[in-house]
């Protein structure tokens, strides 16, 4: 019967899909492990870098010495133009991973628009770029292939323009928006203010006890150079964190897809058996009624 064949075909197609999603899940699991390893290795550096920056920031904020005129360490009131860098994946099929970031960026955009602040959007990752292009939002700068394969050198180059524009006074703030890895099943959205360095977290009491001493002669140069490295590193870390998150999101999405396919095959099997049963019953009735009519 045609109906039976249709169902059989459907079962086959769904189980093929299931195979694909399962393979994608396995690939993501392997890639996630690598990304996690990468993130783990640079965590110590990240912690130290943040500590140094916050110590310097604390010194500037609390004791009001050195670098007080440095743009990177002073809160800018009423920013006129803001740089936003967002990181999305190059590929889809990873649940709400990309859309979460996109939504956050959209919200920032409308918030700033309400305040009459000009926003310069710089995008990393195909998905986010495509979305904003489709919606007619102008992107200042884009980078594809960077979010799937983070490389320090390329990340450095990408953010350097933003850092320099900020230092030259062309922009008043630099934000980094990305979806980061929290654990195997959750991602966490980060909206990080990179420049000027966020001073709101700094408490004066603990920095006064710190023994931080900066050689006077190279203070300005040192601050500039440290801020560069800090921002560049933040960019790189965002990228590797985002890769880990992307893979964990995809792993989850593909796991759900595999399970759904499994359920579907199950219910299609039931449907197939029912149809088969019905066909047999009809045939039997035909035979019996034929025999009956002969009597």
């Amino acid at each position, binding site marked *: 019967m045609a109906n039976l064949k249709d169902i059989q075909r459907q079962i086959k197609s769904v189980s093929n899909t299931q195979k694909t999603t399962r393979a994608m899940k396995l690939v993501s699991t392997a890639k996630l492990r690598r990304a996690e390893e990468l993130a783990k290795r640079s965590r110590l550096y990240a912690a*130290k870098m943040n500590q140094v920056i916050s*110590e310097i920031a604390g010194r500037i904020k609390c004791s009001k010495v050195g670098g007080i005129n440095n743009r990177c360490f002073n809160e800018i009131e009423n920013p006129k133009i803001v740089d936003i860098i967002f990181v999305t994946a190059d590929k889809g099929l990873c649940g709400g991973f990309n859309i979460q970031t996109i939504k956050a960026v959209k919200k920032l955009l409308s918030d700033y628009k309400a305040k009459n602040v000009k926003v310069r959007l710089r995008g990393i990752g195909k998905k986010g770029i495509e979305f904003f292009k489709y919606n007619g939002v102008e992107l200042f700068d884009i980078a594809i292939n960077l979010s799937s394969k983070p490389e320090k050198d390329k990340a450095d180059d990408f953010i350097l323009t933003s850092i320099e524009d900020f230092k030259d006074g062309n922009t008043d703030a630099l934000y980094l928006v990305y979806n980061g890895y929290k654990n195997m099943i959750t991602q966490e959205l980060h909206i990080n203010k990179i420049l000027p360095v966020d001073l709101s977290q700094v408490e004066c009491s603990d920095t006064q006890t710190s023994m931080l001493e*900066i050689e006077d*002669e190279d203070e300005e140069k*040192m601050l500039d*150079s440290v801020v560069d*490295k800090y921002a560049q590193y933040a960019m790189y870390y965002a990228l590797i964190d985002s890769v880990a998150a992307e893979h964990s999101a995809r792993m989850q999405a593909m796991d759900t897809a595999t399970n759904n396919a499994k359920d579907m095959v199950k219910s299609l099997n039931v449907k197939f058996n029912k149809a088969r049963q019905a066909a047999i019953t009809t045939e039997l009735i035909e035979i019996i009624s034929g025999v009956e009519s002969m009597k």
Partner: protein
Amino acid sequence: MDKLKLEILTPNGIVFSGEVISVTLPGKEGEFGVLAHHASLTTLLEAGVIDIEKEDKKTESVLINWGLVQVDETKVVVLVEGAVAIRGENESDIAKALDDAKALIDSIKDNNPAIATVSAKLESAAKSLM
């Protein structure tokens, strides 16, 4: 002799971590050595070689392309961008490390006069190991 803790960190991992007797760093204002109980300071390093004197009196060299060092009485933490440690079990390992180091030197863009002396220093460090 008192020891101090030295950590050399890069974005890609730890290059060196352990107790050392002394360490010589290529500071912006010139080379400086650090022993235990050094006064605290934070300063920048430029491309050069970090010489480490380990507990067992052996020395080790690490090439860096940029650095930020934090020194306090008991420990020295060096944050660097790129680093290559000149070490290895046998000659081929050392030769490989030396090649990596040369690649790192080539990637340093600014033509600092100090860079020239760095390669010479590296060669001699590698030779002493072989």
